[in-house]
Structure formats: C-alpha cells, structure tokens
C-alpha cells in the first residue's frame, strides 16, 4: 500500500504555514505526526495534493502555564504527555490517557492537535479535553480564536475548524485540589481503538462536573443528567444507572444497538465509581 503522489512543503513558521491555507486549488492537508494521515494515505483513503508539514514549528511545540490553565501546543506528542514532560493541569488524567493510546512507537510522533483535528469518534483526546472543559485555539490569517472543546467535534471526522485554520494549542483549565476524575477505556486489545470510552471529571472547586462518552458513533456524548448527580455527590448506584440510561436514550440520533448500550453503560458507571471512590 503506497500513498498517492503529493507536493510536500515544510514552512519555517506558523505564519508561513497559515498563509498557505485556503489558497489555490487542490486538497491541502496539514501533516503533524502523520500517524493517522499517512496510514489513510497508504490505504489510498486520503489523497491530498499538498501536505504542509507543521510537525517542527516551534510555536506548536510550546507549552505554557498560568494560574488558571495549562496551554499545550498542538504538536505536543502523546509520548511527552505519557512521560510527564509537560505541565499537567489534570492531576494525572492526561498521562493516564496518553499511556493507553495506540502504541509507544505511534505515541512518539502522534500529536494532540492531530488527534483533535482528525476527530475519530473513538479518539481519546476529543473526549478527554471536552470533559475537562478545555478550549482549542485556532489560528488563521485573520488571527486567533478559541472554541470550547465540547462542541468542537461536529461529526465523524468533522470539526468546527475552518479550512484556513490550524489548531495552535489546547488550553486546559487546571483541576482544583479537590477534583476527582475517572477514565475508562474498554478495548479488545491494549492499544486498539476504544470500543467504549468514558471520562468523568468532578471539580467541586470550580463547580465543573462532566461525564463524556467516546466511541459513541459521533462527537463526544455528554451525559448531562448523570453529571448532575455527580455534582450532587449522589451515592445511589441505581440512580446513576437510571440517569445513564436516560441520558443514552435521549441521544436518539445515535441509534445504539443493545450491545453498544451495555458497553457505554458499563464504561460510564465504572468511570463514576472511580470518581466516587
């Protein structure tokens, strides 16, 4: 399986990269880690005419920290997160997620921004960043804008990123000391795509309670009623079970099979159990 031909450019700055977008005919793709894009191209499921290599742009590798949040450059790799080499706003959640993503040799090249831009329904980062209430910062010739990660993914492999925008960074609010999280990835094999994914974040310090499901056939699915129960510090298993069932039933557009319902339910309840433990 060999990729179709394309033109390759490696601009030296983010400004230069941004300037290339939305210009001229032909399909343009951004190349960060390439772990998803190049696989698709090898399979001839993607055939861009121009590949813009942004993997070495220093602006995209930068990380920053202030009192409220940590900003992670779009080209921060999963391995850097796994190894704890970035400031961690999530009290251990981000490294835990990174360690279970694909395989080490993929994690050394795959990036946070790449995963967000791809928006694979089974992808970990869209779900995790949405659960944490993070923002994605987008850059275009017009300047910068930020969007909440919750809602950034609009469909299967679809996001709110415009064709002339590059994901510059993810800004993740810091969890307070009292925060608790739960993370459950159900997969048939270590490193495989998730069959079910549940991320629960409970931060009483900020009044932030979210339960997001991934691998749910579309954008991350928020279980609002269930999250509200977490916010109330509910300890009733049956109440949670009912809330999860109601939240899943409310997601009528997803059309889950019975089997999928069971997996999502199990993942959600186990993530909640981690939070409450």
């Amino acid at each position, binding site marked *: 399986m060999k990729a179709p*031909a394309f033109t390759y450019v490696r601009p030296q700055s983010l400004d230069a990269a941004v300037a290339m977008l939305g210009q001229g005919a032909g399909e343009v793709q951004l190349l960060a880690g390439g772990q998803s894009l190049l696989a698709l191209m090898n399979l001839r499921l993607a055939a861009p005419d121009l590949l813009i290599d942004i993997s070495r742009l220093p602006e995209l590798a930068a990380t920053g920290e202030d009192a409220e949040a940590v900003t992670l450059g779009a080209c921060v790799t999963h391995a850097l997160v796994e190894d704890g080499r970035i400031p961690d706003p999530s009290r251990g959640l981000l490294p835990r997620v990174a360690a279970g993503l694909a395989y080490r040799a993929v994690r050394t090249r795959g990036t946070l921004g790449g995963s967000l831009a791809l928006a694979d329904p089974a992808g970990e980062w869209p779900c995790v960043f949405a659960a944490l209430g993070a923002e994605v910062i987008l850059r275009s010739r017009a300047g910068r804008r930020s969007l909440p990660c919750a809602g950034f993914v609009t469909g299967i492999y679809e996001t709110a990123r415009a064709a002339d925008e590059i994901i510059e960074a993810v800004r993740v609010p810091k969890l307070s000391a009292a925060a608790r999280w739960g993370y459950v990835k159900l997969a048939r*094999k270590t490193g495989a795509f998730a069959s079910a994914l549940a991320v629960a974040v409970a931060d009483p310090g900020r009044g932030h309670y979210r339960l997001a499901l991934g691998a749910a056939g579309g954008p991350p699915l928020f279980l609002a009623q269930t999250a509200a129960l977490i916010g109330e510090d509910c300890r009733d298993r049956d109440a949670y079970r009912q809330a999860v069932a109601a939240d899943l039933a409310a997601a009528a557009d997803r059309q889950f099979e019975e*089997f999928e319902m*069971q997996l999502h339910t199990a993942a959600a309840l186990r993530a909640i159990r981690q939070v409450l433990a």
Partner: protein
Amino acid sequence: MAHEHAVIGASLPRKEDARHLEGRGQFTADITMPGMMEVAFVRSPHAHARIRAIAVPPAARGQVFTAADLPRIRPIRITTQAAGAKSPLWPPLAVDKVRYVGEAIAACLAPTRAEAEDLAAAVAVDFEVLPPVVDAARDMRGGRALVHESWGDNLYIERLIEGGDIAAAARAAALTVTREFRMNRQSGLPLEGRAIVAFYDHRLDEIVVYAATQTPHTMRVALAEFLEIEARRIRVVAPDVGGGFGPKARLYPEEIILAALALARDHPVRWVEDRGEHLLASAHTRDHHCRLTAYADRDGRILGLDAEIIVDAGAYGMWPQGPYQEAAMAARNLPGPYAIPNYRARHYTVATNKAPLGPYRGVGRPGACFAIERIVDEVARALGRDPLEVRMLNMVRPEAMPFTTIAGLRLDSGDYAASARLCAELLDLPAVRARQRRGESDGRLIGVGFASFAEQTAHGAAEFVARGAAIIPGYESCTARMLTDGSLVLMVGIQSHGQGLETTLSQIAAHELGLDPAHISVRHGDTESTAFGFGTFASRSMVMAGGAVARASRLLRDKLCRIGAHLLQCDPAEVRVADGAVSGPRGQVAFAEIARIAHLRMDGLPAGTDPLLEASATYEPGVGTGVFSYATHGAVVAVDPETGFVELVDYAVAEDCGTMVNPMIVEGQIRGGVVQGIGTALYEEIPYDDEGQPQAGTLADYLVPGAAELPAIKIGHLHTPATVTEYGIKGMGEGGAVAPPAAIANAVRDALAALGAEINETPLTPRRVLTAIAKARAAAA
C-alpha cells in the same frame, strides 16, 4: 554404535538465529535486482460480476497485462481422485468473470510499487454485477446464484461417512444433546505476506522464481504444468519465509503471473503482497459450520455422534489438493480421542463468492475439536458430571491401542487420560475452583475449560490415496554430502520457515555421524540444490525429513566406516564414529582426512569403494496411517458479564509427541500454535456482508493476539515414543492451534454456568458473549 553426546533431545540454540537477530535475513521482498520492475494488481471490487471491458489508459499500454496479454498461461486445474468432486478451472488473471472480491484482473508494472499502484488505479473495468453466493448453508444447492455456471449447484463435494448403527445409538441413549457450532472465516496471517521475484536466467536457460512459499518443489510442478515449460527450465527458491502456517502451502495465481511476466518482459519482476491484499486474496481459513448430536448413556459414555458439517470453501479450489480435505478431515476427527462406537457424518464443501479457502494450522481439526469438545462438556453438564471425568471416561485407553476410531483413524499409542490429569495439575485445578467459589472483587466470573485431541501426523501414501488426494506427500528426501574437508551439507526437500529445521535436522545427522552440528549445514527450499520433497506443512517435517536425514546419514556413516577401517587397517565391525572421526582399536582417523582421500586421494580408498562421500535416501514411516500426537489443553478465563470481555488468566498444555529432538523448539511450536488458536477463539474473523464484501481490511479491524492479551503458556510433557518412526518421534506443530477455541469456549461456559449462557461460535467476541448472556437471561425469565 555408542555415541558420546546426547544430541537427540538437546535444546540446542538455533543456527538460524544469527542472521535474524542482526536483521540480515533474506526474505523475498529483500531481494532486488538490476532492472527489476514492481507489480501491483488490479483486483475485483465485486464478489460476483461479468467483466465487460477493461480500459487501460493509452499512456499505460505495455505496462498493464490482462489475461489476453499473457496467452501462455493455462488455467489452474486440480485433478482430484475423489469421486464426485467438482473442480473449477481458475484462470490466474480473470477472463470473463470475477468470483470474489480481490480476484486478480490485471498486473501493472512500474519502476516502483507506488507507481504500479498509480497505474492500477487508472485502469477502468466495466462490470456487470451479479448476485453473489454468500451463505453456504442456504445456497449450496443453487438458488440465488451459481458460482460456477457449468455446475448444477454450489457443491465442490458432499460425502456421507458412517460407522456402526447411529439409529440404534439414538434409541439406546439416555441423553440426546444437539448443538450448532460455528468457526468463522479468518486469515492465517503470517507476519510476512506473500512475495515473488521472478526473472529469466539466460546463462542457465531457466526461469527463476523466489517466493515466500512452504512448498517450492510442488510450485515448480505447477509452474511447469500451467506455463507449459519443462521442469528442468524452472527453479523455485523459498529464501527466508516469514511464517507460513498453511496459507503459503498452496499455489497462487500471482506465482504463475509473475513467472509469465518475467518471460514476456525479460527483466526481473517483483510483487510484494501488502496487508490489505493478504486479507483479501491470500487463502482464507477455517469457516466451518457443524450441527452435532451426541447420544449418551446416563454415565456420560457417548454411544454415537450424528453430524452435519458445512465448509464455506470460497470461489476456487487451491492447487494441488483443492478444498476437499477441510470438511473430510473435520468429519474424520469429530470423534476425537474417544472410543465412540456409532457415527454418521454428512459433510458439504460449498463454493461461494468469497476468497478461496486454504489450509491453516490444524486444517479441519480445530473446527472438529470445537464441536466435539464443546458437546462433551454439554453432555457432562446435562448429567451433572465433571467435564474432565466424562472426557476420561470416553477416551481410548492405552491398552486398547492401536485402536481404529469409528471414523477410520488408527490411533497408535498414548495415554490420553494422563494428559487430562496432567493438564489439570498444571493449572492447579483445585486452586482455580477455590478462586471461582470466592468470587472476584471486580464482579468478573472465573471459569476453567478443557479440550483434548489426538493429531494424526506423518501419515504416508496409503492415507492420502484413501482421501483421493491429487498428489501424495507420503515421503521426504535427503541428500547428505560430505565435502572435501569433512564438513557436511544436508539437502532436504522440506522448507523451514520458523520451525528451526536448520538446527534440528543437523542434530539428527550429528547423532548418526558423531559430528558436531556446528560442522553441518542444512540446505532447504531450493529446487536447484535439493532432491524432490513436498515442503513443510501437516506437522510432518521432523518425522519425514528427519527420517530421510537419518537414513542418508547412516549410509554415509557406513561408507566413512569402511574407508576409515581401511585406513586404520582393521575390520569395519571394529570401528565407530565419534567426535568427527572414525575410531578403531588402535587409533582414529578424522572425517576430514577420510574426505580428503575420498575426493583428492582416491589412491587411498579400499578396493571396490567409489570416490565421493554422498548418500541420498527417502523416508516414509513404517506404518502409513500416521503416528498420533495428543494433548489436553486447559484455559482459565475471567469473564466480565457487564461487557462480555474475556481475559485469559492462565493456559496450560499437557502434550505427548513422543521423542523430542529439540524440546526448546517443540515448546516454541506449541506456544505459537496455542496463541494462534487463542486468536481463533477470541479475536480473528473476516465477516462478509450480503454483497460478498469482506469486512476486515486492515489490522485495525482484524485483531490478532498481542503479548498484553496473553498469559505465559504452561507446558507439561508425556513421552510415548512412536514405534514406527526414527527415534520414536511423532509429528507436531499444528496441535497447539487445534484445542484453544474449544478449551476457551468451555471455560467461558464454565464461567457463565450460573447464567446458563453458551457461546458456540468463534471468535467469542464481547458482542457474542453479551448476546448469549441476554438470551440465557430471557430464557430463564
């Protein structure tokens, strides 16, 4: 002859390792030659269609070859002796019809594979899509469509085998248990895909084909036949081969096409199969559907089995043997290691619009073992008895052997019940039961399951003839050639692709000759340098090739002793071989010296002894009906009843393959086979949709076990040497893959016993487990 060193039975580290550890192996895709062009195929996107036209872009003319452009190619034809068997002609490049997604339509040549794929993408084929046959059970008599128009139905073959009186067994039974079992279609998936390099050697006037194959000599037979070239003008070489497991032991259209291209173009050509192609167009495997009824008395003694077996064999039969052995082998092995007196099996081998079915580790036996070992458990459960006890009750006893089963397998020797007891011991069954009773803190359910089987190996001519086989792989060959300095080359007809035969065959020659294995080379896989042999498959190489090596080595030893005795001025009866020399009562003479004389100083030879030190021999075991390895496997699982996920907590094999030449290598074969069997049990499947489209195209969909999914696999050995083979060896290699689906399905059954859920279909995916639990709960309500 006394021997200094116990080389047979020694776990010698392998000679093969050095090159692979350095990354210096030579696999077919590693071979490049000046002027070589790469090939990519245009393959059918439809399961069943007529080809109306093939449009090649003008710029690509001369670079794209359809069937019309390679007229010398004859269609692949199987000559089976099996009465009533149907065999389709298989044109290597499709002519007027395609019959499975992935079937080759045109070969595209370019300097790089990427450019060849560009060409393939530019070729436009106009199809008239036809309804496909995808349901073997439903469409075996025709109905929806015919895969081969000249047939009246979609059956390669159907058979009935019977023994005893099944109706009497049914009447006498206190218990009747019926189940349907399904072992779904999958791939053998060696890590190296197929690959071919072909070129015409002007100096030798021969076409040379390097191929990732398990059977180079038989490939030459096929190339000669289907290209109409004399065999003396064809050389086939299997260099390093990255796993075979069966799918590389059959002829493929691409091999004929590449050879024809090399002749047509007069420059080397190379085709390297990619993983997508492998999942599409390399032999698919398994795909068994078995409906089985067991009749038992109230103690669990099985009085009779009544079976219907359907194998979905895909669109074409694979040369040389065709698809006939899969269902036939399943039917013959369904009675397992048991003394079952009454039997009836109808088996059907069905043509469908799917990729052709080929052999894969165990062939028909994993499917058969799945059915019989699951039903033994159901018989036991119905009677409230322990499944292991019911197994042992039914097993053929050692004192009854040789015992011919009701299906005609002549079990030679072994203590099957001892393997069951040893397996339980390896798992520490009482501890597992105690853990099961305690319960898991995470709510998962522990279960333990067993499966036993006997594996026919190294069967000879009579057996294959009885099966109506097209070719009879009933022997192997060896030429042992000692060179001018006393070093030794063994040239053998098998092909080692992971089994360590470069090491183990040299152990045998070392044993016979008293020569250090370090001074012995094994040459295999090359039709140029080895006498005819059938290749490596069917767990046969150690018995067959080992036997041939032993014979040839002894002939050589006898000549060395004659010459040595002459040089030592004593009687040949007074000498022996040891430490690379012939030793007599008054001294010794090194092989190097004898070799020098036999080649360079013939004046030193005894009268009546010719120069050279070379001996050739063939070998087949003393009994043609095979020698039977056997084993009991045990699996401990933890089943998550909320998600259906199954974790393998422990796995043990208690096996007997007679004398082991290299125990370390034997254990490696067992473990490798077990993990492939675990793949069948829990992970591997190529589903097809109603349009005949395969649904697993990458390794993201097609899951194989990784290290993280597996426990360490425990092995215990029993030793019942064969009486009719060299050193008492029994064949082994496939057995590991035979029992895991049954053992694991039985373990899951045990875990879910309180719920009454059964899963009788592989792989036991979380979806299937949850569906079974839901069904059991609904039935209980």
